[in-house]
């Protein structure tokens, strides 16, 4: 019925995931499956538990109950860096770059995980080290071009405007050669024009890099255009899911968002 929610062709599956903090249940019994190659969205009002889902998926929290599967392998309990190696790269709600490092250096940080040489080859200055170092530089520069930052390679990340920092963070995530991008509120702090451009950009990189993307977003309007399937959370639980049009017209969703000025075109 809904191809996007089919477990067999899925890249990321969450089954009955529950995450509690003391008495607070931030995520309760959440299940979903993201199809390979799809752009899915997790939306919900403030405090719905979206960032907690993000933290559970990326490995910062281990849920008390449930299983998470990435590319057919169970990733529950793994460290964030192990999950990244397996093919998932996240970006954060609040941008986390190294502000004093240049654009190129920031992207190169992402390249590290696919590097073969070890640190002592750098310390000893072995020939293989210099070759690989040049390869990583070229790879990072090529990625910078993909996100329109090739003119700013030598500038420090902190000096870039907000939108460019977002794209830089995405480029750094792409440098880890992920199969799945996990974006936590990438449009936060952007005006409507900028968010539309960002969503178009996200669609473009999905096609170019053959990715699957899971978008976590507060604002429903932002994700409507780009997501192929949407899950809606409220108070930590899934209250609706479906194609963008189905979700938009779902009375439960409208009620969850009531009081916020998001529902205008329902």
């Amino acid at each position: 019925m809904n191809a996007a929610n089919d477990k067999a062709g899925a890249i990321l599956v969450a089954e009955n995931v529950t995450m509690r903090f003391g008495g607070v249940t931030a995520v309760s019994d959440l299940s979903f499956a993201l199809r390979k190659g799809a752009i899915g969205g997790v939306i919900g009002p403030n405090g719905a538990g979206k960032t907690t889902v993000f933290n559970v998926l990326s490995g910062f929290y281990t849920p008390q109950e449930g299983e998470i599967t990435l590319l057919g392998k169970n990733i529950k309990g793994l460290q964030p860096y192990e999950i990244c190696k397996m093919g998932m790269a996240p970006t954060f709600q609040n941008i986390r770059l190294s502000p004093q490092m240049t654009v190129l250096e920031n992207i190169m940080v992402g390249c590290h995980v696919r590097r073969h040489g070890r640190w002592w080859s750098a310390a000893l200055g072995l020939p293989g080290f210099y070759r690989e170092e040049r390869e990583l530089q070229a790879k990072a520069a090529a990625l910078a071009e993909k996100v329109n930052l090739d003119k700013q390679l030598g500038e420090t990340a902190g000096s870039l405007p907000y939108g460019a920092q977002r794209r830089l963070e995405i480029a750094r995530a792409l440098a880890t050669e992920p199969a799945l991008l996990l974006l936590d509120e990438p449009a936060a702090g952007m005006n409507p024009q900028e968010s539309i451009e960002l969503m178009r950009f996200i669609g473009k990189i999905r096609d170019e890099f053959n990715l699957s993307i899971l978008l976590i977003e507060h604002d429903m309007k932002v994700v409507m255009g780009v997501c192929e399937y949407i899950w809606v959370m409220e108070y930590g639980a899934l209250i609706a899911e479906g194609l963008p049009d189905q979700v938009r017209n779902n009375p439960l969703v409208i009620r969850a968002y009531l009081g916020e000025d998001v529902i205008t075109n329902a």
Partner: protein
Amino acid sequence: MRFDRNTFLTLAAMLVFGLILWQSEKFLGDYQIYIAKLIFINIILALSLNLIYGFTGLFSLGHAGFIAIGAYVAAICILPQAQKEMMWILEPIAWPASHIFTPFWVAVLGAGLFAGIFAFFIAVPVLKLGDDYLGMATLAFAEIIRVLIVNATPITNGSLGIKGIPNHSTLIVCYIWALFTLVILARLCYSNFGNILRCIRDNEIAASVMGINVFHYKVLSFCVGAFFAGIGGALLGSHLSTIDPKMFNFLLTFNVLMFVVTGGLGSLTGSILGATIITILLEWLRALEEPMNLGFIELPGIPGMRMVVFSVVLLAIILKRREGIMGTRELTWNRIFAFFSRHKA
């Protein structure tokens, strides 16, 4: 390595400087050579702490401990057996220490390895604790090392220390070890491994989702830093010819920390400048502790005066220029040429 203009200039500068130092006995007095050696040793210590604190952001206060390990290991390695048996009067010297006798370069490398291995055993529990406790825990470990040295009398000669260490740290030897340290750390810090260390410093969470095993690289940085601290300690012991546990107290760590902070956290050339300037300043301020005759009044020497003045100078530096001399920038050929072409125009 690509052989471009800058590499050529660096190599040429290293060589010319080395030749000058080699001939230095002809135009430098004993005291000046003594200070010059101390400068190179302090450069090694500053660079090693900068890797740990400046590049990786680990606020470690245990440096004196690693320097002590280096100094003792090297001293035991280069002292002849007969001399050791004579000096250990509290308890006879124990077996492996009594018979070891190696060339100086082996002793220095061994000192570094020992310090690095010791650092590994400290790093694993301490870095698991989290960064808030790091300063305290490393400080405590440095004290533990000192207590161990005092009590391991059959190996270290306890609180009596070791005297008459052969002085193999000539000026050129100190220079070569400082270059060795600089080259290796520059390769590490200005490759992508340096980028990930700085990423860990700036944002550990971001580093971990980018597939970086943060703990692994923290331990690595800590141990490599300790390795070079051990090398610096080996040279220091041989340079001073006398070591005892009291020398390696917190004040030593504090001095090294000052070199690094003054030069700029995260700048290797900054550490070189910081170590040079402060070493000279500290020697120069020594005059303050001697009795002074101002013509109309005779001032008695006040011990400790130099640390007071020194602290005031440092306070001024920190208040006036927080990021140190260099900040996170490096003194590169490109920067030097840019500077001169700007001032010509």
